[in-house]
């Protein structure tokens, strides 16, 4: 900052006043210019101006919501990398190019319409789910201290399009990235950004991809470096919760009953079950009926029939089950800043039981839970 500051003119369109005030984000990013005469002119220019912050390889990162009262120690680390491109020859889902990211197909189905897949559809679904698992394993191998979640997004994005698949999260209700990365107190829907993983973090990677008209959806929580025993117990318990629910699956079972098994096991270990986010039908639509709460005593609609495909994805919190959302409108965090873990599989109801469509492959990385 020099005395030359007084010679700048306001950058707001139609204003030529002398300006000495600067955009703090631009200063942090060491960008030239960005002078405004008043907060008012700054506000008017904001929608155009902020694009300046989205630069490649920024020298400095910043918190985009400095006045937000964060519940834990995690912060968003902006700027986000530019939107990644999907090759034109990969067929996108219907929301990929919608300005709001709405899926017309999802909006046209009611919550009692649970689709049973035909054997032909199931073959495609199995294949897509297998691809999803491959991508998750690739992402898992990239996890180490110092890697940014944005880097994981890049890896996931590239592995997905390499398989001629579309990364389902991208532009779904305007989600900006190709994967959800949820670190520590993030319950779900974390947006990959410039934050490097720290030793002791836990990170959930939620992979969804779309190919041949079907979506796969699965996630796992991983340890980064040396994780404390309590976090390990949380993650392990969460995986067990998922397993207990999966084992209940067979025709005639009420979807509403899955939550009882999950909640019973979580509370027995001193943890709580998130109520805001639920499992869901998956297939031709990214999210469809049934809606599957993970907590006990819910009144969810639906009874399992052979051919139903859905996810179970319990989010288990170390503290309070309450969550809230960051001002990015996506990132769900625990209200007490304590950690949250999640595991998800896509499950098929068979004639007499279930089939896990997103299960381990022979070359999947070894489980971190055998401690």
């Amino acid at each position, binding site marked *: *900052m*020099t005395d030359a*500051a007084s010679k700048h003119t306001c950058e707001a369109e139609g204003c030529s006043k002398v300006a*000495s*005030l*600067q*955009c*703090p*984000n631009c*200063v942090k990013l060491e960008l030239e210019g960005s002078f*405004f005469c*008043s*907060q008012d002119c*700054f506000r008017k220019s*904001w*929608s155009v101006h*902020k694009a300046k*912050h989205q630069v490649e390889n920024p020298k400095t990162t910043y918190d985009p*919501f*400095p*006045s*937000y*009262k964060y*519940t834990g120690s995690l912060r968003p680390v*902006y700027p*986000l990398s530019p939107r990644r491109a999907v090759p034109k020859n990969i067929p996108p889902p219907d929301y990929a190019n919608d*300005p709001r990211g*709405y899926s*017309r197909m*999802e*909006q046209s189905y*009611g*919550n*009692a*319409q*649970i689709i049973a897949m035909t054997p032909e559809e199931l073959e495609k679904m199995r294949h897509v789910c297998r691809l999803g698992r491959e991508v998750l394993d690739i992402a898992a191998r990239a996890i180490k201290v110092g890697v940014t979640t944005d880097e994981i997004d890049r890896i996931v994005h590239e592995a997905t399009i390499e398989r001629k698949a579309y990364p389902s999260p991208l532009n779904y209700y*305007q989600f*900006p990235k190709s994967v959800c990365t949820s670190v520590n107190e993030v319950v779900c829907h974390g947006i990959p950004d410039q934050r490097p993983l720290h030793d002791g973090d836990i990170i959930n990677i939620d992979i969804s991809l779309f190919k041949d008209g079907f979506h796969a959806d699965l996630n796992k929580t991983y340890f980064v470096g040396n994780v404390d025993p309590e976090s390990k117990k949380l993650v392990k318990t969460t995986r067990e919760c998922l397993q207990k629910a999966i084992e209940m699956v067979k*025709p*005639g079972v*009420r*979807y*509403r009953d899955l939550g009882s098994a999950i909640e019973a096991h979580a509370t027995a270990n001193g943890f709580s079950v998130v109520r805001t986010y639920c499992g869901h039908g998956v297939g031709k639509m990214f999210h469809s*009926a049934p809606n599957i709460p993970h907590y006990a005593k*819910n*009144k*969810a*609609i*639906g*009874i399992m*029939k052979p051919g139903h495909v859905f996810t179970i994805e319990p989010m288990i919190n170390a503290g*309070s089950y*309450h969550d*809230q*959302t960051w*001002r*990015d*409108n996506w990132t769900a965090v625990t*209200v*007490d800043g304590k950690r949250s873990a999640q595991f998800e599989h896509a499950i098929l109801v068979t004639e007499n039981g279930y089939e896990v469509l997103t299960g381990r492959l022979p070359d999947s990385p070894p489980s971190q839970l055998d401690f």
Partner: protein
Amino acid sequence: MSTVNSSSCTEKLQVLLQWFEENKITFNQEAIEVVEHKPTKRSSNIVSPEGFGIVARRNLQHEEPLVVIPKTAIISAATSALANIFYDEGLAGSLALCIAVMYEMSLGKQSPWYGYLQSLPENADIPVLWDAQARKWLDGTDVAKWLERDDASLRDDFKSLQKLVADYPRIFVSQNDIDWNSFTCFLNATSLVSSRAFSVDIFRGNSMVPFADIFNHKTAGENVHVESEEMVCPMCGEAFGCEHMEALEAMDVENESELNEDDDDDDEENNHGHEHRIDKYFKDCKDCNDCEEDYEDVESGSEEEEEEEFGEELPLLIDSNGVSIEEDNMDEVQQQDLDDEQYEEVESSDEEDEEEQDGEDKWLDTLDMVVFKSCKANSEVFNTYGEHGSAYLLHRYGFCDSQNPFESASLDLEMVFQAIAIANSETRASQVEELVSKYRDLFVDFHRAKSHDEEEEEEDEQEDEEEEQDVDGGNRDGINDKDQDGDVEMSEDDSDSDSDSEDNNSMPSFSIDAPGHPDVNLVALLVLGLADDSVFEQLLHSEDLFRQYFPLMRRFWLAFQEKLDAGASVAASLREANKVTTVKKSSAALVCRVAVALAEKRLESLGEDSAKLGIKPADPLQGQRWENAKQLRSNERKILQHFIKAYKKFLVKLSG
């Protein structure tokens, strides 16, 4: 729940009250209490001697809220665990609801509705459950007629159920007093649904509404009304926004200018329900941090939304020393602080008080029971199941009143054809029959909407009523805001006419109301059936002419009857009515004569009570049925006699 007077509670009631609490059904415990119903108190109004009732603990004021019932606590086919099975099998309406209720009952204590279901009686004693002896007492009444149809349709429904049970053996397991193969068990559940369910909203339809169904019915004497947001998402029942409504909302934003133009009070009656609802949604969203940005997007309709979605919040400019400009822009800073305080409030209340769940409760869609007519302390608080005559009440709910301003008795279409055949000719009767089936829509529409004239009259009456309420209820503003936001006041009424056998249009009948006035369709048909050959020939062969003429005849008769009733001379009445269309005095007289004959025939088939009823049986259940049948017969007879008397008077005038 410390305030419940445990000495008066049976175990059933205790479990029910506990269940209310667990399911967030709240009631003003200082104002009302749930009591075991005392059959001696109001013998004619007891839905079931085993049932409960609501008693006021103090004087209740107009507009006072009494009960709040979250829609998550109700049982509807659309929100049942079985909803996807119903969808796959094409089942809906009262049969689906009945199966949903039976299913929950079959789960026993495993059902989330156990606390509610265990409080219900085994059945409601509606006539479909009556044995042959009791049914004989109804001989000649409207209920007897409807019962014939019930028996057939219930057998059909039971067959559908049997098929469903066979197709899904893992779902339909006979246990906990539910035997899926027992017709009696099915009838019992049907009677509970028939007597207790009412329409909640456009998604859920007819539903079992815990607590609301404890209030007993009093015709035209109700103390409470049920208010519910009817215009929920038709796809999933959400009242506060969902992916389906977002699609709608997106369309609305596209048509934003249109929406703004509609922004006056007049359109409440029109088809603007969903727009009002969306308005409400956005209003609520304003206070909600999660939705704040959505709200802004919609309001500005900005083209830059895509960028703004991941916009960072607007920071404060910094001066050359790197210091934020807060000093110079106090307004700005205060605004920001204010925002933050709001957020903190929401957060801290969440943390402090898990019970309250501030954020969640705000999005709870509820049914609200509000005092409609004040009520004295220590008296029973009544709801209304709608404006129905005795036959309807007995048939659907299992009881009837002695005094009922909505009383009615009906005449079958078949009888009308017979009367035309006798008074005119067989040919004419069959020609009229053809016309009726050809122009069915004219009758159906008319039944729904009544006549234009009548409707206007009714609106006037309603306005008068509302004014009266204003006087005794005091200030309505503020408390009633909800209505303006699209909430609909409802009575415990059935809106799914298709599921009701008496509205079944296979063989329409014409009702005669309490003042002794017939359905004008009946009279218009008689005018047609007795018209001169020359006139009739024209109507028979020209659709246009018929469509013009038939409504005119209805209006003619309404005007004529009204004038005569008011004591005008025949000449004046005819003159007035003939402004609409021309009917000769002699034709009018003939119509009256045939109408009287029709009613007399109906009265004859009702028969003498002494012959049909015999002596009251000693068995309490049969005794109660006998009383109800006797009451019904007496009410129907009164209506018919009223009608005959009025039309005989017209006849005297017309022939004088």
